[in-house]
């Protein structure tokens, strides 16, 4: 194992010395003794999406990982961190796809995905990267480069790879960017029209106030116990204790919790919730039935509707069957679609109206075709109940995310390495000519964009014209996990001349790239992070545990060296090294907190590992609006809750009207379209033992949940029995879009007609062909790639039907892990 010192010696003698200048080589010393190569058996502190940890480093290797003692409810996933650092899928060297290295833009792209790569040097790799950027900007223009596709970078504010890549590539030239994301695309586009905020990433009412005031809590397609394990910055797991308190209150009969979900969730089991089953994708009919009851039984809050909302009358005409389709949305009508009997619908409506009721929605609902509708309809229901802005009442779309509901301390968190060019900096290629195409595309439609350049689509009231993309740059994100319909993606990727990916592990996006650069993991660099994405509980030191493995480098080094190729490295780094940047970011944070929160000098902070801020005051979402809707107007066009949106009406879309409506789906189980051929609804929700696709490569941890080495598919005993499948069998899951192998897990938590594969399972095709069998079980091999509607154009991953069978015959080996085939 090379130590950092050896590496530095080598670098000093080599080309890198001249390149990096003296700064990286001499000034890196942070606090004495922490940056230096680890002394044997030293405990260090760092953070991650999975929480803060202490790690024992022994002879330059991470020997032991334990949760940070402040974390009262650590996730089990900390056990996967060791394997995330040490596993055969780590990218060891810069690699180039065989035929691309020979023929570059004229390469045989049908070979893309065959995983055959050649090892090259860093100098070669960065020269190639630079040459391709240069070629695309000069031969085509900014419209041909797509570098804005980013995601859940590793934690750490300085080393954020999203920021490094964007800043470096922006210094070279302009490029096509994205808007929205795969998690909340429909919600964040829809809710501004209704509630005047994206809501999905907003701080919610504090848990203590919910627990003290709510009599009924409805978890609607929401599984916080599962999803609160991970956070956008270092997660504190501060919200978990409230789920325990809720469990005790349920047991004591103080609060009723109802879980509206096809599946009995982890949260429902944990808190002892009542399970209200409904057919998948039928939440809107169910809610319309509730609205019908509230209206016709006079249970809705007329004052609230009159004071705080607009457009109720138009909507209620639709409910009453006096407008639009002319169908009265009675509970009986709803029951027919959603599978909940009419009396239960009525009883549920009465229960919510009679009690202080907190509605808590998950994101799965809006990750389906017409995903705008259930979110809009939920806001209408909450308005009819009239409890928006009351403690323990109203609506939330975020309590399952990153510790929402833990009161915010109010302290400023550290900033980040700049993503943007500094004021007065301009790209080398400053052309702004996008050839008549849009420079920003809705992210979930980017494969459409590859396949149909020049096509014009509607999006959120505007027209988007797809640019003719020739080259992509990815870092810290894995589109070959999060985008739908991998076979369609494979077809689209054949259109790309060059794909450059920077990552630390060889995921399916690397497999489909042309040039792959090895970044190190966050455990191999020094950084700082906010502790608690919403609670702002502290500032955390992220001590480098070990030296970058193999030939990997920090993103900072990689992009410093890239920008050096066009003479802009000093501007890129602002002539500061890692240590100087950390001191700078910490110093700015300290300054911002001056007079409000004490922070020690940097060296003391670094030594102690954390600065803690006291918990903030409990807070109620929308309370200010309720108090004075004029001064504290919502961000909707009118400033009020818009039950009917004239703006959306003005767009004239046939798949998203002036008020929330029921639209039949392209595929729907339980008697819906396509269920005769593929009867099972596949839900691909966020995993319980990963963060999206991160940590899937952690071999030892994956073994704790994989079934015969495959990703689990959860199913009901009935569906298993009907197909002769036993728990532990390998099954083939398929539809007209693709096929995959997965390991059967039979569970009473699943109703008939519903199966689940967690997203983030690594795609492992048997070969480069379109339609190839996925050997591990990525659900996005099977999902449908259509926009939610012309409004959001977001992902519709949860509109997906499949069939499955027991897999007979010789099992193909799993190809997802272990890196490329070196040629």
């Amino acid at each position, binding site marked *: 194992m090379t130590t950092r010192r050896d590496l530095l010696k080598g670098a000093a003698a080599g080309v890198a010395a001249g390149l990096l200048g003296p700064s990286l080589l001499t000034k890196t010393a942070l606090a004495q003794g922490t940056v230096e190569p680890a002394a044997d058996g030293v405990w260090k502190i760092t953070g991650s999406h999975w929480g803060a940890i202490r790690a024992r480093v022994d002879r330059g290797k991470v020997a032991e990982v334990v949760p940070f003692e402040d974390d009262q409810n650590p996730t089990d996933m900390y056990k996967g961190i060791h394997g995330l650092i040490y596993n055969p899928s780590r990218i060891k060297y810069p690699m180039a796809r065989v035929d691309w290295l020979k023929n570059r833009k004229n390469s045989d792209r049908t070979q893309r995905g065959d995983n055959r790569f050649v090892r090259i040097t860093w100098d070669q790799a960065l020269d190639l990267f630079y040459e391709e950027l240069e070629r695309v900007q000069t031969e085509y223009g900014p419209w041909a480069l797509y570098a804005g596709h980013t995601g859940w970078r590793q934690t750490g504010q300085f080393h954020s790879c999203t920021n490094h890549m964007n800043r470096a590539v922006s210094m070279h030239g302009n490029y096509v960017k994205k*808007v929205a994301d795969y998690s909340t695309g429909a919600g964040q586009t829809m809710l501004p029209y209704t509630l*005047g*905020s994206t809501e999905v990433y907003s701080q919610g009412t504090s848990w203590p106030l919910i627990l003290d005031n709510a009599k009924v809590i409805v978890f609607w397609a929401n599984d916080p116990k599962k999803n609160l394990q991970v956070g956008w910055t270092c997660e504190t797991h501060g919200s978990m204790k409230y789920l325990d308190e809720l469990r005790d209150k349920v047991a004591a009969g103080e609060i009723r919790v109802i879980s509206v979900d096809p599946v009995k969730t982890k949260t429902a089991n944990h808190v002892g919730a009542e399970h209200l089953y409904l057919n998948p994708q039928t939440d809107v009919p169910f809610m319309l039935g509730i609205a019908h009851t509230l209206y016709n039984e006079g249970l809705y809050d007329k004052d609230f509707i009159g004071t705080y909302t607009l457009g109720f009358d138009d909507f209620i005409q639709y409910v009453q069957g006096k407008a639009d389709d002319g169908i009265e949305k009675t509970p009986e009508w709803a029951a027919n679609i959603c599978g909940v009997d009419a009396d239960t619908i009525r009883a549920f409506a009465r229960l919510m109206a009679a009690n202080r009721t907190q509605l808590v929605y998950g994101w799965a609902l809006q990750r389906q075709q017409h995903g705008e509708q259930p979110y809009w309809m939920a806001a209408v229901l909450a308005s009819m109940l009239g409890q928006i802005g009351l403690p323990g009442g109203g609506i939330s779309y975020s309590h399952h995310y990153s510790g929402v509901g833990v009161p915010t301390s109010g302290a*400023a968190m550290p900033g980040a390495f700049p993503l943007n060019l500094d*004021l007065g900096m301009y790209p080398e290629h400053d052309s702004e000519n996008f050839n008549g195409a849009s420079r920003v595309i809705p992210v979930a439609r980017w494969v459409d964009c590859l396949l149909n350049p020049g096509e014009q689509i509607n999006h959120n009231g505007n027209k988007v014209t797809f640019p003719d993309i020739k080259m992509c740059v990815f870092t810290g994100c894995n589109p070959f996990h999060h985008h739908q319909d991998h076979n369609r993606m494979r077809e689209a990727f054949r259109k790309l001349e060059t794909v450059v990916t920077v990552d630390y592990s060889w995921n399916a996006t690397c497999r489909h790239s042309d040039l792959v650069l090895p970044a190190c993991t966050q455990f191999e660099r020094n950084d700082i992070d906010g502790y608690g994405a919403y609670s702002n509980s502290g500032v955390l030191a992220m001590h480098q545990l070990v030296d970058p493995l193999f030939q990997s480098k920090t993103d900072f080094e990689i992009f410093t060296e890239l920008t050096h190729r066009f003479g802009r490295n000093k*501007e890129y780094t602002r002539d500061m090294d890692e240590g100087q940047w950390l001191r700078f970011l910490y110093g700015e944070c300290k300054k911002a907190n001056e007079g409000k929160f004490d922070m020690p000098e940097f060296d003391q902070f670094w030594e102690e590992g954390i600065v803690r801020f006291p918990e903030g005051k409990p807070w109620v979402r929308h309370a200010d609006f309720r108090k004075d809707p*004029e001064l504290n*107007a919502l*961000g909707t066009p009118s400033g009020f809750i818009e039950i009917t949106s004239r*703006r959306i009406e003005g767009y004239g879309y046939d798949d998203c009207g002036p008020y929330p409506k029921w639209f039949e789906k392209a595929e729907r189980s339980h008697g819906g379209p396509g269920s005769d051929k593929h009867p099972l609804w596949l839900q691909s929700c966020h995993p319980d033992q990963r963060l999206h696709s991160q940590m899937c490569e952690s071999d030892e941890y994956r073994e704790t949940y994989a079934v015969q080495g495959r990703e689990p598919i959860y199913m009901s005993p009935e569906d298993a029995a009907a197909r002769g499948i036993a728990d532990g069998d390998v099954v083939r899951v398929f539809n007209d879009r693709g096929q995959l192998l997965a390991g059967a897990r039979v569970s009473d938590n699943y109703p008939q007609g519903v199966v689940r594969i967690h997203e983030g399972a690594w795609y492992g095709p048997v070969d480069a062909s379109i339609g190839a069998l996925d050997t591990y079980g990525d659900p996005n091999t099977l999902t449908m790639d259509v926009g939610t509607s012309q409004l959001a154009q977001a992902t519709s991953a949860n509109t997906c039907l499949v069939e499955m069978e027991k897999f007979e015959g010789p099992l193909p080996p799993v190809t997802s892990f272990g890196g490329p085939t070196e040629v």
Partner: protein
Amino acid sequence: MITKLKNLALSFWRVMSKPATKISLGVLAFGGFLTGIVFWGGFNTAMEMTNTEQFCIGCHEMRDNVYVELQDTIHYTNRTGVRATCPDCHVPHNWSHKVARKMQASKEVFGWVFGTINTKEKFEAKRLELAQHEWARFAANNSLECRSCHNYDSMDWEKMSPAAKFYMQPASERNVGCIECHKGIAHHLPINDSGVNPILAKVEQGATSQTLEEGKQYFVVKPIAIYEDEDLTKQAGTLSYAAPVKVIEKKDDKVKLQLKGWRKDKGFGRVYHSDFGKNIRVAVMEKDPAQNPDLISVGLSQNDPATGLDWSEVTVEFWAKEGAFIPDVATLWNAAGEIYSSNCSTCHAQPDPAHFDANSWPAQFNGMVGFTSMDPSTQALVLTYLQLHSSDYAEGTH
């Protein structure tokens, strides 16, 4: 202490007022010449003595306040070891100006004798006034003392950081005095030790020395109270960031201003917006004044088809204090733009301001701003910036 000074002056006057009796004219003249040389040298030596850092920080007022602040700045320690001491910046280098400045300094001796700033609290209370004197002096000589070391002609733009060049090059073309942008470079700014964003603090600082002229338009740099009466006793409301106002009348440091805006008919009509149908806030009125026809003239109501709400144009006249207005709103937008791009790019690339329209920005902004460290006041500014640079106002966007 006063009696001491008085006695000294009296005895000196007695000697000097006696006529000469036994000395020849030649001796007197030559002696006078010699004495002149000695005194001239002595005077200059003495004056130069008062022109040292040692002298300046001899008083604890300077040593404990501004001198400490200087020590954290680049003018005190830097990689080349060139230090600017107190007189380098605060005393004119040209002799006659220097003498004039030294004569003005009698006021400082007075202050020292009477202890006007001899405690930290007294100093802070006087800081704005003291700073304004220095800024006015720098403004009058176009930052002459700075320029004895820094010269536009000697600046190599290519060696400058892009951000510095962005501001410096245009400034050089207009020969802008250094202090106009670099207030607070050596000592703390009078306002802003806590709370106000430092970028904004500079803009606010600039407004403190802006004199308003009748009939001209200005923009408010921060939310300020507005009043019904010229004695500023009855608050009418609060102006929001960048609200455009016209000066109707001036009385000392008070101004009568006129604001035009639009309000929604639903509600109490307390919130004024910049344009019809646009939720861009320019003022929030108190409850009673909002309904006072003597104060506010209301135009005809119009229906906004985008929401179905009726809006009316309003004109209101009110009194406010000078010191928070600037003639060119661009400086405020530069500050807001910088705050936006640095705060909203820590997690993702920030959308272009023209990506959304004015009425869509509040929802986008409110949904994400919790992730930033912006205080509520800065949030209000940045939102207004985004709305006024949204697709409704930017050219050539969708």
